[in-house]
């Protein structure tokens, strides 16, 4: 069976061939990982203090998202899962734009229509609007990739999902289409051992996730998902193949969800403590930090400083997002279609009049005054 690629061991020691990366880029990766962790921490706090309704822990899986984003160009597309804060942050989505979504405020690109962590961005990278239904974005990502080839472009689409996502119909149809049409797609499975409370061995009887590629004629690769350099390497190779017209790759990044499924979940009901302890040793940030110190890319003080800087950026972002108004009432009715049909127009007018005429904190235009 597929071996699992590792470049840095849990102690940060080199155990494989290190990809050639400039210091600048290593720094950027570290920064994105730190940003991700702080973003996650902050959201947990915001949720616990009742300022936002919900979040999805990303701690422990920063290496997957960041390592996978790093080989991409800004013209590539990402069809992310909800556990991919790191991809957006690495590629330059402002933390404040993400926080706008966490608060569902008027500045949220999704106009506060979705739950928190359901981001949507087109700038600086195509980070596809996240959907709650599991797996639906997988064939979509394949279609996106097919379109690029039809136009003769060499872009790729990175499609990210969980181990649970491999059971969805979207995984099956998406992988199958990608195989048949040789789409420039990279399938990245973040195998964090759990789908809410369902452990991997109740999710699938297959030996690994990577081997599932066989069913679609797609090469499968296994990688240590807590090793950002290894993730970088396998995604980099897959991207190169895809750009060259050599077709898709399935990557299984083996990692562990270090918290609950979401802020609504109590994992102590089903996750064994020992398992968490074991994985805590394999922390991706600790490992990468150690490597950077040993390679003298940064010293401890510089890392400390970067960490503080990231924490501050995130805190500022949260504050800024919190201060923004809710979306105007009229956003309930816009964006259903490009042109608003009559029946929706009538409902909008009725609704705004209904609430504003009773002084419900909304004026005739459907804006909230505060």
């Amino acid at each position: 069976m597929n071996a699992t690629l590792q470049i840095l061991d849990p102690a940060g020691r080199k155990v494989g061939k290190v990809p050639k990366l400039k210091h600048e880029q290593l720094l950027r990766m570290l920064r994105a990982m730190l940003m991700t962790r702080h973003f996650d921490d902050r959201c947990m706090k915001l949720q616990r203090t009742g300022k936002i309704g919900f979040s999805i822990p990303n701690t422990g899986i920063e290496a997957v998202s960041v390592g996978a984003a790093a080989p991409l160009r800004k013209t590539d597309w990402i069809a992310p899962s909800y556990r991919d804060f790191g991809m957006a942050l690495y590629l330059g989505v402002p933390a404040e734009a993400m926080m706008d979504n966490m608060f569902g405020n008027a500045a949220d690109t999704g106009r506060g229509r979705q739950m928190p962590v359901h981001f949507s961005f087109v700038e600086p990278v195509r980070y596809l609007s996240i959907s709650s239904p599991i797996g639906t974005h997988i064939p979509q990502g394949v279609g996106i990739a097919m379109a690029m080839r039809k136009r003769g472009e060499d872009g790729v689409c990175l499609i990210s999902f969980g181990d649970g996502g491999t059971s969805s119909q979207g995984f099956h149809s998406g992988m199958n289409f990608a195989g048949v049409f040789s789409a420039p797609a990279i399938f990245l499975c973040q195998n964090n051992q759990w789908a809410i409370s369902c452990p991997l061995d109740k999710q699938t009887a297959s030996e690994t996730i990577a081997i599932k590629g066989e069913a679609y004629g797609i090469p499968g690769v296994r990688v240590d998902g807590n090793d950002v350099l290894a993730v970088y390497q396998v995604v980099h190779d897959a991207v190169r193949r895809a750009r060259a017209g050599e077709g898709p790759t399935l990557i299984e990044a083996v990692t562990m969800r270090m918290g609950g499924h979401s802020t609504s979940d109590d994992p102590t009901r089903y996750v064994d403590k020992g398992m968490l302890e074991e994985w805590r040793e394999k922390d991706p940030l600790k490992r990468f930090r150690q490597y950077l110190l040993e390679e003298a890319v940064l010293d401890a003080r510089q890392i400390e400083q970067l960490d503080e800087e990231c924490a501050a950026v995130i805190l500022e972002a949260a504050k800024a997002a919190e201060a923004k108004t809710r979306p105007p009432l009229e956003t309930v009715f816009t964006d259903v279609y490009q042109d608003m049909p009559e029946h929706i127009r009538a409902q909008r007018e009725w609704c705004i009049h209904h609430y504003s005429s009773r002084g419900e904190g909304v004026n005739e235009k459907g804006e909230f005054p505060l």
Partner: protein
Amino acid sequence: MTQLTLVQAVNDALRTKMREDPSVLVLGEDVGPKGGVFLATEGLTREFGEERCFDTPLSEDGIVGAGIGLAMNGMRPVCEIQFQDFIYPAFDQIVSEAAKMRYRSGGQYTVPMVIRAPYGGGIRGGLYHSQSGEAYFAHTPGLKVVVPSTPYDAKGLLIASIEDPDPVIFLEPKAIYRAFREEVPEGRYSVPLGSTRQVREGGDAVVFCYGAMVPVCVEAARRVVETRGREARVVDLRTLLPLDEAAVLEHAKECGRVVVVHEAPRFCGYGGEISALIAEHAIEYMQAPIVRVTGFDTPFPNTLEHYYMPDARRVQDALERVLDF
């Protein structure tokens, strides 16, 4: 007798039937050790073992498809769909298979199965944790569609659904899962499918509703006593398919003024059927337009969900409109 919330009553119904009938099974995502994301299946794996209450892979098509097979081969599966919004991967199994198996096989194969799913808004769930898809199922011959609005009914209707020889879509109003408690008898009892429940008396108008809209409509009716001095009847439909059409028409004729309420979008929604029935069989009794109060014809929003969902004031407005007509 114990005081139970609606979700506890669901749990009690499952436990009661599982104790009584070894063919009753529960399957779905996270229904095992976790007890379901709303705890509707809490303790069932502990009491009945993994063979009778078990987690499945993340595939609604598999849950319902395997459920159909289990049902055809002597079991009484109760499938949980984590949120009704996630039922659509199983839509083919439900609409093409469960609903049509008896018909296409001349009764040789049947699907005595329940599909439970929490539905509706009010928990800040946005587009995909708030939907009300009852109209899709109510338009599908071969299915039964049941929506309880109280703990007592939840237990009695769920037991009746499990005992029913045909597939039942059992939609649970999650907004009121824990909204109030009610006396619920211990042990087995059932509330027959296909009967409506008059929740509030009144003869000046009638409001047809179901699920989480029932308390909203009762509140609206109460307000109309104050604002108009008129008494509106409130009828909980409970079983959307097969509907007790005779009862609906009787209420409509007696009251002459009708309001229909649901959370789902208006266009081609379930309310349209109620209006149409009355317009076909009792129009001559109508003293006012038949007014629908529903979600808007948009997806379900998040931050502004309370402006999307019908509330007592909107229902009150509609009642006043038909009463003043």
